[in-house]
């Protein structure tokens, strides 16, 4: 009976995740070591082909050689995701801080204002940026009519556009957790620190930021992971000229019909994500807060 009580709280969520997430992931891991079936799916034969393809390729002359294509795509995706996370922290922290110091009812209003854009579909929101960024878009037209530029500058279909779209999509995932940890911040701590450090920045650095770290960590994870696998923003705003991981994986499960390779890529993504989590966990531990208990 005691045992049941101990696990009663954690059980429902855990069972859900184990049955409908862990099990599927195991299927994916198994798939990555099998041979592909030409029309999608796998053949039950052990093969390491999917992993060797990540680094090596049989080129057009049938020689096995090092192939940097996939590494390039991997690093590009990690880079774009990391920049997006950094930008989200820089934007999200001040906003969360600002919201947290408003009177209670205005705080709730502002938090709701942050979530309202999500009532419109992600595709549409991303599409709206096309209207802003393209050659005949809002920004270019404005700059042209002001005489700042003579011909439209290419804003759309660039890496910057992808990052802008990712930030736009995921910054609320940063603001909400930071806000959640700042909101319960004890004002007296800041007052005390102001007395001690006598500067606003000092108080911020030594008191507010450390206290909001769990929120920043949670937010970074929430932003980093979807950015790593994103493909709506890269395809709509990046013009699809340079593949990102998300599109590459999707390609394997659709037109390329190479499920083992798609699974192997997914395993790689999961490893990158876990490394990122470990990195955060260590950082968080060093600064006195832990991500993983």
């Amino acid at each position, binding site marked *: 009976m005691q045992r049941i009580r101990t696990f009663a709280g954690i059980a429902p969520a855990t069972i859900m995740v184990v049955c409908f997430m862990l099990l599927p992931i195991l299927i994916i891991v198994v798939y990555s070591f099998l041979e592909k079936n030409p029309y999608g799916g796998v053949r039950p034969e052990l093969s390491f082909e999917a992993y060797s393809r990540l680094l090596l390729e049989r080129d057009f002359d049938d020689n096995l050689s090092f192939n*940097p294509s996939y590494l390039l795509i991997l690093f590009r995706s990690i880079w774009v995701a990391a920049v997006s996370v950094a930008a989200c922290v820089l934007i999200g922290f001040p906003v969360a801080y600002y919201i947290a110091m408003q009177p209670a009812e205005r705080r709730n209003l502002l938090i709701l204002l942050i979530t309202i854009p999500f009532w419109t579909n992600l595709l549409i929101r991303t599409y709206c940026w096309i209207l802003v960024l393209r050659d005949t878009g809002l920004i270019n037209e404005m700059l042209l009519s002001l005489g700042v530029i003579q011909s439209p500058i290419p804003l759309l279909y660039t890496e910057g556009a992808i990052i802008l779209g990712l930030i736009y999509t995921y910054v609320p995932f940063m603001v909400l957790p930071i806000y959640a940890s700042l909101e319960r911040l004890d004002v007296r701590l800041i007052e005390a620190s102001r007395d001690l450090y006598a500067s606003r920045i000092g108080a911020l650095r030594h008191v507010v930021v450390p206290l909001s770290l769990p929120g920043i960590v949670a937010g970074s994870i929430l932003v980093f992971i979807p950015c790593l696998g994103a493909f709506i923003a890269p395809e709509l705003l990046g013009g699809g000229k340079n593949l990102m991981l998300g599109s590459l994986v999707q390609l394997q499960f659709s037109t390329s019909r190479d499920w083992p390779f798609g699974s192997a890529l997914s395993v790689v993504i999961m490893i990158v994500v876990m490394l990122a989590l470990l990195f955060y966990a260590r950082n968080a531990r060093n600064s006195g807060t832990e991500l993983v208990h």
Partner: protein
Amino acid sequence: MKLATLATGLGLVASSALADGELYIYNWTDYTSPELIEKFEAETGITVTMDTYDSNDTLLAKLKSGASGYDIVVPSHNYVPIFVAEELFQKINAQDLEGYSNIADGFRNPPWDSANEYTVPWQWGSTSFTVNTDVFGGDIDTYETLFRPPEELRGQIGMFKAPSDVVDMALIYLGYGVCSESKDEMREVLELLEEQKPHVKVYNSDGILERLTSGDAALHQNWNGYSIRARTADPALKYAFPKEGVLTWADNIAVPVGAQNYDNAIKFIEFILQPENIAIQSNFAGYSNGISGSAEFLNEEMATAPELSPPDGTPMVFSETCSENATELQNKVWTTLLQ
């Protein structure tokens, strides 16, 4: 236990009560005439529920997963053998159906379903590209314009985001057959596409109309039906029939294994085999159909659309189900191109 029996019983009653009047159609996006469905519902009393997909591969994955509950699906001709080989379709033996004789010669017993055991034709059309003739006034009926664009079109080109059509067109331009398994040919394809890439603005198969009509792209890979809509919005948008050969496709109606309303599916198939009905569909989507006698029911716009009648002598190339090797080479070209 009793509860379970009761629930099953209720479920059976509920589903059989509904089974008389339901039909679940799974078709490509924006590809089913609402008017056609309304007419079918009115004539038969069957309630139609529509869902849509974006690619043959989505359909394949969905059907391979089993329990999807669809009664009618619409795969492209080059995917039909795959679905059949994977045992995802049930036999409909179209030759026994009312209206089978309406199917035009070219579409009766086609190579992909030699005895019409599994499919009947739905719509067919071609894939090439649409050019804004205000931007470029020269000859558009050649892949030269697409792959080695003139000055005016550089940086204004939109391509599909999936490799198959892009690679096939490049192969045709280079004088080879589609679905090439030759490494040398595919290397040439890659070189051609890499040479073209700096002039390409976007690789995306969605929102083509929008980019063409807003002037974001002056040349875009496109299907002929969509090109009709583009021209309706802006008369300068013309569809190209490259003299090297135009890629052609045909979509077909089939009944998946596990369909809950087989009889209603057959009713639907017999319904669209009637010229006056399939013409409603063609008028909506802008594509030709494989039913003889439907021409007289086509509206003025369809009957005269230049997008539907290639110039005499232009070869039509049916896209094919590529072999495993060919698909692999295509993928290699694609990932190297977009790395």
